[in-house]
């Protein structure tokens, strides 16, 4: 017989773990973006939907620095096609998540 209460609790704790992991990742990405941002105020008001170049006004030469920092920190490689598809903070989070699993 399944113990549904136990399973529910297990699922809930997994969800919490994932949420914590995502929150930490988001925090780390915001720190990297802040390091290379010309206008720190824009980062403070940024959301996951913010476009990294258009909304956060981060210089394209610094985007390469950001990608290198991300690759080093999470021990992943972002290829040219993947880089083309990173427009928002959410895109960045998704690619890190998919590669660091």
């Amino acid at each position, binding site marked *: 017989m399944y113990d549904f209460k136990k399973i529910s609790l297990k699922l809930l704790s997994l969800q919490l773990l994932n949420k914590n992991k995502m929150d930490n990742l988001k925090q780390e990405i915001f720190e990297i973006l802040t390091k290379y941002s010309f206008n720190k105020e824009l980062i403070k008001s940024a959301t996951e939907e913010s476009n990294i170049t258009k909304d956060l006004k981060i210089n394209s*030469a610094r985007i390469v620095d950001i990608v290198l920092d991300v690759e080093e920190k999470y021990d992943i490689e972002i290829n040219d096609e993947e880089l083309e598809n990173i*427009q928002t903070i959410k895109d960045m989070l998704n690619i890190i998540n998919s590669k660091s699993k």
Partner: protein
Amino acid sequence: MTYIGNDIIDLNCPENRKSFHNSRYLNKFLTASEINYCKGKNYLYPYIFWTCKESCYKILLKKGLNKSFSPRKFQVNLLSFDQTITSIVKYENFSCAAYSTISNSHFIHTIATNNKSIKSLIQFSIFNINESPIDQIAEIINISPNFLTINKKNGIPILKYKNMLIPYDISISHDGDFYSFAVLKQE
């Protein structure tokens, strides 16, 4: 349709100096043949390649490309070296001509166009970040700066006078202490 793109890079900007002397950084934005080309040559070549790629990307955005700048997807072939360095920049099936100038170790500026025949019609200016871009553009296109505005549509700059679109293709760039723009009157 003819479009222009331009890009400037401040050679004395500390962030650029740090990045452009880092081999990991160079490997991330230059293609294998570009890296090979740069070997044993003047340190300025990677900067030239960068501004060519970025200028070409700005043209592609105007042509409707909806992707982020991925510099290694652009292949730059340098063709001639006079006062202006001429290159061909390729991205997938698209190619454009790029013209780069180096100024007294202060900056490198590149203008690109998808129509080589209009090169002489492109007007441009490079100025200090403390100066007003509006005044500079107004002077070049011979219009009063009072009602001239630079707006952006999908991240692409457009010029308006008294809130009406005026027939100029414009490209704007900023890096470190410098601003640059290029304009082309559209027929």
